[in-house]
């Protein structure tokens, strides 16, 4: 389980980059895509989502799902997209650096 706040935000935004989704969908995708390696404590997702909404990196609206249920859908805003691009760059740089250190260790 990864505790890093920044990591969770990055994962959420990366997930939303594929298209709008509700909180449950985001949780499922993060679990699925990381082969269950990363398990998000499901509830903690929501305060993070709402903070992203407050900071205008994502926008949200109530919509009806395929099986006629009301769900709150989140969508990347242009600002969120920009933020994600930047964060991905620095993430790449960091993981490369970490990788190098690991190899030498």
């Amino acid at each position, binding site marked *: 389980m990864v505790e890093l706040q920044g990591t969770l935000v990055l994962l959420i935004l990366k997930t939303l980059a594929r298209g709008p989704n509700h909180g449950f969908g985001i*949780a499922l995708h993060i679990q699925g895509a990381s082969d269950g390696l990363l398990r998000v404590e*499901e*509830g*903690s997702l*929501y305060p993070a989502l*709402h903070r992203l909404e*407050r900071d205008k990196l994502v926008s949200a609206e109530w919509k009806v799902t395929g099986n006629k249920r009301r769900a*709150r859908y989140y969508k990347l805003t242009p600002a969120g997209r920009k933020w994600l691009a930047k964060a991905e760059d620095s993430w790449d740089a960091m993981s490369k650096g970490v990788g190098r250190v690991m190899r030498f260790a």
Partner: protein
Amino acid sequence: MKDRDDFREEIEFHVEMRAELNQEAGVPQDLARDSARRQFGNATLIQEEMRRMHVNTFFESFLQDLRYAARGFARQPLFTLTAVFAAALGIGSTTAVFSVVDRILFRSLPYAQDDRLVSLGMTAPLDTNEFLFADAYFDWRKHQTPFTSITSFTAGVADCDLTETNPMRLGCSMVEGNFLLTFGISPILGRNFTAEEDVPNGPRVALMTYGLWQSRFASDPNIPGKTVLIDGQPVTIVGVLPANFEMPTLVHPDLLFPEALDEARERAGRALRVFARLKPGVTLTQAQAAMQPLFESSLQYVPPQFRKEVHLRIRSLRDLQVQDARTASWVLLGAVGAVLLIACANIANLLLARATSRRKEMAVRAALGAGRGRLIRQTLTESLLLGVLGGLAGCALAWALLRMFVGLAPEGIPRLDQAALDPRVLLFTLAGSIASGLSFGIAPAIQNPQAESLTGSRTAGARRMLLREWLCAGQIAISLVLLASAGMLLRSLWKIQSVPMGLETEHVMTAEFVLSRLGYSEDARQHQFFNELETRLGRIPGVGSFAISDSLPPSGGTRGRLLASMQVEGQPPFDKGTGGLIMWRYVTPGYFASLGIPMVRGRAFTEEDRAPGASTMILSQTFAQRLFPNRNAVGQRIKTNEWATVVGVAADVKNLGPMQPSEPEYYILRRHVPDENSRIQEPPTGWRQAKVAIRTSVNPNVMAGWIKREFAALDAALPVTIGSMQRRVGRLVDRPRFNALLLTLFAGMGVLLAAIGLYGVMAFLVAQRTAEIGVRMALGATPGAITKLVLSRAAAWTLVGVLVGLAGSLFATRALGSMLFEVEARDPWTFLVVLPVLLLIALGAAWIPTLRASRVDPMTALRHE
């Protein structure tokens, strides 16, 4: 913001979806749900966290603070009212004065790049403004280098008549063809003068001001090209000036004509006002240096004796317009600034007192986890709210004050008619409110609330008390500065008013008029009018004596003649210097009797002196003294326009107003028929301009009607202004009176606020020490001893304030400078009056709480603890 239900629904959806997934995986229904909840975590906590994400914004907490502050103020209406009242006084008076002074000192003039415009010319005695004779102007125009453009207009506004059905008296000025171009003004309708129009004997064309176009021609859009009759001559209107058009000297003509300077013939011609636009990057000093050689070479046009008294002057257009209003503007601005300062210190004190009583509340909030920054923000929000409330109330006060200013103001305050609470002024008010809110909020805000305050110990208050007393002393100091300044202006005013004018102004009425150019251009026609007028005025019942003159003292616009151009029989011609300009008036025999000017020697004019053979004149005492230092002037013969015999010496009149020494002058008698003197029809109005003085004991309103009737019978279309000599003389004191009045008003506000402040601090002190006083009394202190104890503290701080104030006054009153008349900047008499007044008020304010202290009942006081 966000609804709680929304959060719950969002969480519910998640849990249900997870439960369904679990069920699909084969978990029984009830278990599936439970496990879904477990997987989610603490829903209540998470929901709370979600909410916090939205609530905890800066703006939200600001609104929260604001609501809290408003509730607090509503609970303490007396405190709130006092604070808002103080803020309103400070901000309101500052706003009102700023709205007037802004037009004078700061706001840009209605010309393109107004800071590049200058006024230039020569200065000479008797005209405070620079001018240039046409001949010198031609040279300057040709050879100047520091300006992109130089232009002129013929000084002044001449009366002219719109001679159509419904005739109308107008003001006409003459400007050079490039006048509008230099100032960056373009007509809103039609066009500017062309080069072909600004030539001698060119076509008769004119530009019309917006006001005339609106009022007389109903904003007719087809006016350009139309012809109107001015003084009986057809004039084509070529354009209409914009509504905000202003002459650079702030005169108000209705029509502008081309100046049509004639370079070939106008050598030694009219006096011009000259304006120019500086080239980019050229400073005033550089321009001055560049024009100096031109100025020196044009001294050749100045009579040799005159040259030493003539100087070059180049100054900004604003300096020309503001004239002597600058000092008064800054002084008034300083005065209201001082009032605002006192108000801020006052409110800071109130807030500090309130903060002391709120120490426990703050400490509780701090203990519950409010950060220091959060508490400071709360306190600052409160003071900002007070500042803005004060600003709102201040706007109402400013509106009332401004109306009072306009109502009371004397003539000659530049642009007073334009002063208003417009957006720019209101923006200033808002900035002032916020700044004062911050300034009086700082002290209470930085008081660090400490948990120990919860213990109720009182030691923490000592340092705060010292700050409060310093604030009090500061208020007293500033009030003293205000009082001293006001006192000096009042003393100046008193001195000015007690200067003997050399006139008996009571029961003297005046009538002023300018005969129209069309009907009275001829000398003979003027004489016919004046002779007829004399007969008619003499017939009015109740007229003691009367006189017709071209000018009346004290006034500008009096004719002058160079002493050097006169000649005294039996003396060599004057050759050293010009001797300056000597004023003279063209009067009928009743002049001295009507104005109550006594004769020092000889006699006044008589009707016989007007006979064709006789030629007489009268000198003022100063002038007689100057021409004939140790001899009798009566009987001497002097040549002005013609030779005349001095028949009398009249007492001096304060002809430049009470604040200046009497200028020498002489009087020439009007005859019934044209003569040498009446032939000089200069300046453009000639002798058509005249003033009548009538001594009468009849009720002025009744007499005004009678005078008007006689004029109407002579010339029904002639506008006549009726006034009184008393008003005419009084007008000269209007400016000093206005300044003194305003400063006294502001000083009164300052002292009132300071007294309230002192009272507040003393009352608080007494309340805080009630227990101590109780103990003292229980131990045998007499009420007298308690009074001494409390009052001595107030006296000590008042004394500190007075000492600081005295030192400040010595500097501040020096800034009054030219506003003082025969009063030293450190006038002891003013301080002798002002100091006791301030001390009495201060001790009076401290007395009430002291009285309360001396009546403390020891039992109640001790139980209080």
